[in-house]
Structures are given as structure tokens and as C-alpha cells.
């Protein structure tokens, strides 16, 4: 326990110091993407890992966060920070609307239903003129400031903002793990009927977990919109993104606090490197590598990479 805390402090210290040592945009960008996906992975892990409800629709929350921010900023000039909040509200609303009927489905059926929801959202935004349709939305270029959530000369502010979001996500998950909610969610994953016999309203707790997952993902969506300053439906709501979140958790360790963190640190550099060195022709090469990685993991360490670190120590 003590050892874990020290490791965490060293790890976070290294993250804080990283951009001061590496001044180039590319390593900074890579780490921003790692932390972005790690935070989203933590969000996915809460519903998919701890609660065992595999969601292939989490990208929809990312998109809702991004679009809420973009629409409010472009059309009404409202600060993205407020857009972030509104995005969260809409994401929770979506989670509840989707969760209410879908959580009656068990196992694979829930997963399939979330694919449908994700695709519906993608289609809606691809055809919705007000939201820029398939062309997407360009953010207006505003003066650099924290309130405007835009920084043009350096990635450094973005880096620290996502670091805060990332640490906050770890914090939320840490509390989640130790709360009644977290225990109940794990019970629901292991045996829903057994959980009900102990007075657990499984619908309600699945819904709460899904909402937390939605909020974390939505905040990441807002960050992404402000970071890239251009969003379109396939960059924010693609099914592939939901699958990537699932893969990140699978590689790192399902239902483990640091699982998605490890997963993102393995996954994103590979994606970024293949993108840089192979360009668009190399699209998918990273996924081929992951599939191999997953196969190897499934044989060698089905609990995920996280299990390597805990090997030999008490659980």
C-alpha cells in the first residue's frame, strides 16, 4: 500500500516534469493523448470494468461533450468551461435515456445495444445541419487565455489541463473503488441475482456508474474540441474510439484502478508512432499490433498487464 503511494507520487512527479524536459511539440502531444485516453479509459472502466457492462457507445459521450462545447462557443460565444458543464449534463441525460431500456439487457445484448446507440448518435450529427453536419465545426480562433480555453503558441497549458483532468479521473475512480457504489458495482458484475438478494437495486447502480462514466468521457470530449479546435462526427463519435477504450482497459486490466493508465501508456504511443511513420497508409497497423498483444495477453496473463505489477504481492 505504502509502496503504491510512493510509486504514484513518483509517476505524477514525472508527468509534471515531463514537458519541462521535453520541449518539442511531438512528445508533449503524445503524452497529452495518453492522458486523454487514460482518463477516458478510467471512465470506461467504471461501467465496463467494475460494473461489467461492456459499452461500445462511450464515444457518444465524448462527442456530446465536444459538440456541446463547440456549439455553445461558436453560436453564442459561451466559454468552453461552461460548455464542459453543459456537455456533462447532456451526457448524463443521454446515459439515463440509453441506460433505462438497455440495462434490462444482459451481457452481450447490452454491448450490442450500445453499438446501436453510438451509431445513431454518429448518424444524427453527420446529418444535423445546425451542428455542422458531416463537415464539422471549426472553433473560432480567440486570444490565448484560460477562460477561452485556447492556447496557440505552446501545448504546455493543454498539457497541464489534461494532467489535472487525468488526476481527477484517478481520484474519482479511487473513491469509487472504496465506496459502497464501487462494491455494489463489482457485485453486480459478478452475480446480478446474488446482488439483488442483498438489497442492491441493480438498475439504479448501473445507471449511476454509467453516468459517472459519461461525465468523465464528456469532459475529455470538451478538452479534445478545444485542443484540436476542429471537430467532426467521425473524429469524436466513431465506434472505433469506443472499441479503443475497451482495448485500453483490456490490455491494462479490467476493473483495476491503474489498468486503463497502463493500457493508454502502451496503446497511444503505438498509435501515434504508426501514424507518424506510416501515415494514412499505415492506418490499422497499430490495431494489428494490439490484436496480437491481446492474444498474447489472453494466453499469458488474462488479467491484463496490471497483473505483472501485482504478481507475487497480496491482492
Amino acid at each position, binding site marked *: 500500500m505504502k509502496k503504491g503511494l510512493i510509486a504514484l507520487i513518483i509517476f505524477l512527479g514525472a508527468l509534471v516534469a515531463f514537458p519541462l524536459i521535453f520541449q518539442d511539440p511531438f512528445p508533449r502531444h503524445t503524452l497529452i493523448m495518453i492522458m486523454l485516453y487514460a482518463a477516458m479509459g478510467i471512465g470506461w472502466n467504471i461501467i465496463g470494468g467494475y460494473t461489467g457492462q461492456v459499452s461500445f457507445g462511450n464515444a457518444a459521450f465524448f462527442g456530446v461533450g465536444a459538440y456541446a462545447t463547440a456549439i455553445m462557443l461558436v453560436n453564442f460565444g459561451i466559454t468552453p468551461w461552461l460548455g464542459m458543464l453543459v456537455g456533462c449534463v447532456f451526457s448524463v441525460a443521454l446515459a439515463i435515456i440509453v441506460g433505462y431500456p438497455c440495462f434490462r439487457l444482459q451481457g452481450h445484448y447490452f454491448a450490442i445495444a450500445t453499438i446501436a446507440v453510438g451509431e445513431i448518435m454518429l448518424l444524427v450529427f453527420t446529418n444535423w445541419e445546425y451542428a455542422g453536419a458531416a463537415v464539422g465545426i471549426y472553433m473560432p480562433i480567440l486570444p490565448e487565455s484560460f477562460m477561452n480555453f485556447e492556447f496557440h503558441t505552446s501545448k504546455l497549458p493543454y498539457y497541464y489541463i489534461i494532467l489535472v483532468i487525468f488526476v481527477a479521473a484517478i481520484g474519482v475512480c479511487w473513491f469509487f473503488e472504496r*465506496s459502497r457504489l464501487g*462494491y455494489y458495482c*463489482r*457485485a453486480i458484475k459478478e*452475480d446480478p*441475482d446474488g446482488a*439483488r*438478494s442483498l438489497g*442492491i437495486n441493480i438498475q439504479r447502480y448501473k445507471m449511476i456508474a454509467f453516468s459517472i462514466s459519461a461525465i468523465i468521457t464528456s469532459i475529455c470530449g470538451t478538452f479534445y474540441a478545444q485542443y484540436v479546435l476542429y471537430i467532426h462526427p467521425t473524429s469524436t463519435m466513431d465506434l472505433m474510439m469506443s472499441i479503443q477504450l475497451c482495448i485500453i482497459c483490456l490490455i491494462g486490466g479490467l476493473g483495476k484502478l491503474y489498468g486503463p493508465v497502463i493500457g493508454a501508456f502502451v496503446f497511444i504511443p503505438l498509435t501515434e508512432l504508426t501514424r507518424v511513420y506510416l501515415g494514412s497508409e499505415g492506418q490499422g497497423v497499430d490495431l494489428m499490433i494490439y490484436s496480437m498483444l491481446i492474444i498474447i495477453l489472453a494466453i499469458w496473463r488474462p488479467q491484463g498487464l496490471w497483473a505483472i505489477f501485482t504478481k507475487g504481492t497480496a*491482492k
Partner: protein
Amino acid sequence: MKKDLLIIDNITKRFGGLLANQNISFSIDEGEIIGLIGPNGAGKSTLFNCISCYYNSNSGKILFNGTDISRKTPEAICQMGIGRTFQLVRIFKEMTVLENIMIGAFLKHAKQGDATAKAEETANLFGFTEKLSLEAGSLTISDQKRLEVARAFATEPKILLLDEMMAGLNIQEVRETTDLILKLRGMGLTLVLVEHVMEGIMPIANRVIVLDYGLKIAEGTPEEVVNNEKVIEAYFGKKYHAKRRGNTAPLQ
């Protein structure tokens, strides 16, 4: 002791054309140990699932403390004070023993610290003190069954419904289980047991209810029930029953 803590009033449960429970009525007083027995397929588990609201009965009422619970959900029933275990254990296998009991304890103790304290106390009572950090899936079957009871007990119920707790246990374990059940009653619990193991249930039950083909065919003290003609017929068939009637030797 409160009379009629739980009243089963004319419960009928149908699965398509099959009448699993047909107009079953009985009542349970506080502090009783009730045995629910009957041959395979008699409808015991169905009735059990109706009481714990995993099934909703087609007609009839179940009154707990005067409230009709027959249309409620399993989680609501547990919150009202009826705990249950399952015929095939449904413990959380990948969690530790302590965590399993904590899930139960969380019902009345929302804080992690309180739930842990309650769970540890419960674990001591059920003899899990040395096994708290073991993974529940690694326990022996008899320990797993006991863990399921401990988990349900941690929700602080008034009634515990135990579904075939003694099935598959050896003689020593059956004895330990009966001791445990008596201990639970001593703590003010009311217990309903579905059981096939007669040497387990008969010495401890205050009353036994016998089902056969979905009907209640007998109710009474264990002695009354074992000598009941209908019960003997249900268990051994008409032929044996006829033979035995000619022979006055008591059934061993």
C-alpha cells in the same frame, strides 16, 4: 414472539401449463425454524422464489409484518428484512470473503469503515476470522454455503430463507450447519429451510411443510409429518405405502 410474521396466503404460480404451486397457504411465527420439504419437482424452490420475489406469483398474497410483498422486487424484500441464499451458491467468487460479507453489510452501513466493522463481526460469528482475505471462489463448498448465509445475515434480516444449505455436505458439515442454524435462531432470527437432507432438518425444525406436485400435502411437527400417510406415499410411492400398511414396523 410475534405471531404470523410471514403469511403465505393462497399462492399459485404457473409456468405455462404447469402448476408449480397451487393454492399454498401457511404462516410462520417469529423465531420459528420451518422446514420446506418434498420430492424433486414438488415446487419448493418455486415457492421460495415467490417468497423472495424472484418470481411474482400468479395469484395469492404474501404478507410480511402485515404488508403484501408478493408484487415487490427481490431487492425491496431484502431491504424490508428477508434475506435468502441460493440452491447453487451465488457468492461473488472473485472477491475476498470479507468483501462478500461487506456487500451485505453495506445495506445498513453506508460507510466503508462501518461496513468493514460489521462484516468482520459477522465473519467472526460464522467462523471466517482466519479466511477474511481469501478469494471466495477458493473456499470449499460448505464454506461457500456458509459464506452465503453470512452475507445475507450481514443485511440484518428478520427472516432468512435458506435454499438447500445441506445438500452435498458430509455428516460432520451437516452437524455444523444445524448448530449454526440453531445459533441464528438464538439470535432472534426466523428461518425457512428448503431441504432434502432429512437428518439435518428433522431434529431442528419446529414445523415442517410438505409439498408434492405443487400442492401442500402436510404440515406439522417433524414427528407428525414422518408418520403422515400422504407424505410416505409421496416419497415412496403407492406400492411401498401399501406394503408398509400391512407391516407395522416403523419406518427407519
